């Protein structure tokens, strides 16, 4: 089996890796680049735990082949905080107790950040629909929605 060579930007860093043609971006992130923040909850695009952005678009990294990342800009949960300064969404998730087990949290944060970049002032309903592809089994979503709304308000300077 011949490995494919891929060059991509991951969280702003130029990154090279070798992969099999059938490897998913998720498996390369986790097993080769040691970025284990993205989780495999389903492997079929139904749970959102592996959410990352690719060239600015929110995607499930389990539904992207690693070879497709050639030349792409990938951002993961590990790229969200700046050094020791948390992103407002991260801070609000802790403040609002928007996580219990936390396994869905990285994916939800990546998805929520993507929403607020596109729509800084979403309604609660818009947040719920945007995040419909991110399953959380612990919280009933209530505190997650509160945290996203509060972070959005803070980021707008409201």
């Amino acid at each position: 089996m011949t490995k494919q060579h891929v060059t991509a930007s991951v969280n702003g860093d130029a990154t090279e890796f070798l992969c099999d043609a059938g490897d998913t971006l998720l498996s390369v992130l986790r097993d080769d680049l040691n970025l284990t923040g993205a989780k495999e909850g389903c492997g079929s695009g139904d749970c959102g735990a592996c959410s990352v952005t690719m060239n600015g678009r929110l995607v499930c990294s389990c539904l992207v082949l690693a070879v497709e990342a050639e030349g792409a800009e990938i951002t993961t949960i590990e790229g969200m905080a700046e050094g020791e300064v948390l992103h407002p969404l991260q801070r609000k998730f802790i403040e609002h107790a928007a996580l219990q087990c936390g396994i869905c949290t990285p994916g939800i944060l990546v998805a929520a950040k993507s929403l607020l970049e596109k729509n800084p002032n979403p309604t609660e309903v818009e947040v719920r629909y945007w995040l419909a592809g991110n399953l959380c089994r612990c919280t009933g979503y209530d505190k997650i929605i509160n945290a996203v709304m509060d972070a959005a308000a803070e980021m707008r300077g409201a």
Partner: protein
Amino acid sequence: MQYAAPETATQAARLLAESSGTAKVLAGGTDILVQMKFGAGAPDLLVDIKRIAGMSDITPEDGGYRVGAAVSGAELGEHKGMCALWPGVVEAFELIGSTQVQGRCTLAGNLCNASPAADSVPAMVAAKAVARIVGPDGERDCPVQEIPISPGKTSLGKGEFVASIYFPARPDNASDAYLRFIPRTEMDIAVCAAGVSLTLDADGTCIDAQVSLGAVAATVLLVQDAADALIGSKLDDAALDALGVACSAACNPIDDKRGTIEFRRDVTAVLAKRAAKTAQSRAQIRAGENA
């Protein structure tokens, strides 16, 4: 599995044609990667068409739009022209999967996956959309409706792939709508679905209509009796009832884990009626805006 990312459509067609094993086209990958993991396994060759010029473009053409085979749901939803001209197609496409899936899924992929429950296909069929197919022998155009022939199977020949889908121009007082039924609010496969595209005359009478149904037969149905029920009417209750009866009669559904035959027959009629009303109201608004 071999992976190839050719830069021209001709190369892609040649790779597909010359492959001795199973060869598949990769656009958004939202179906094929799931099949690779949980279904049939990996094909021998995967041809990624996203590096071919034009595949991610939405181009005005003769008053309509040509949508490249790699345009994602998110991109189409951000296109003001398509949203104004074919809102039913855009809403059908945007119903597929999550926000994450929208970042990747494509109309061409939804079409060529040939699922009877594909959301965008009934809307495209009602829109009389035409697929441009590239193959080893060059290009050809084919009505979208003729591409899926049975669950998982298409009419595409060896080496052929859909490169773009054309949505034609339409009069100002015309519009479309798509509705599907799912048990949750998101993330499900359609249990049944209806797309309605119609054109009104100046006094609001329906003069042209297409009604398509999804997930109630092996392929998407285009129901002439249902269209006839609308044509000549102002979508009064009698016309809508006739539409519902025609849709239920046209269904040939199955019982499965997602729904029953009876449920699909009944709810398809409900959806068709609701979609027709939405299409009518959109056409009226659009006519008003363009007047």
